[in-house]
């Protein structure tokens, strides 16, 4: 029974995660899209922890830990590289 509860929660969280695709698709700025991708990372942490309980795989807590630490790297790479350089090219400072 507890397994079913955890899997149910996991599916609910997974569906909320999918809402992030609305932001990825509609933008309008690059930062919106990138933040939606970051949302997948942070929600993914919760999902990994739920699945660790549901399937009794303690190693998934390590996966959650790694995701929580490393999701930031992509965001910072976006801010420092993909967005910044574009800012010198278009006055708006955004890419779409």
């Amino acid at each position, binding site marked *: 029974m507890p397994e*079913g509860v955890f*899997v*149910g929660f*996991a*599916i609910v969280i*997974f569906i909320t995660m*999918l809402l992030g*695709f609305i932001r*990825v698709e509609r*933008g309008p700025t*690059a930062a919106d*899209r*990138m933040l*939606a*991708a970051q949302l*997948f*990372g942070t929600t*993914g942490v919760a*999902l*990994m922890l739920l*699945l660790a309980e549901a*399937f009794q*795989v303690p*190693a*998934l807590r*390590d*996966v959650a830990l*790694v*995701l929580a630490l*490393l*999701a930031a*790297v*992509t965001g*910072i*790479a*976006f801010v*420092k*590289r*993909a*967005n*910044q*350089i*574009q*800012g*010198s*090219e278009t006055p708006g400072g955004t*890419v*779409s």
Partner: protein
Amino acid sequence: MNSPVLWLDILVVVILILLSIRIFSEASLFKSVVLFIALGLFVSFAWVKLAAPDIALTEAALGAGVTGALLLDTVGHLRSRNVPYSKHRHAEDGTSSNA
């Protein structure tokens, strides 16, 4: 057969396929890269469902960290066209890009 666990599998697989279609049907390069980063995350759920936590761990570390940073850096580089080296560096400082 109709257990919730199998539904989760089907959900993950459908999202993986839709994501990979969107990556290559997308005109905007940056959007493709964001979708590709998202694909890396969703694939690590597939590894979890396939009882491969070792691979999920590697995918989370490499997909979320290194590959994403490399691709975004390349996108930034490909956009930095006609920007001379001096301005290029200033733009990265964020100090005198308006000068």
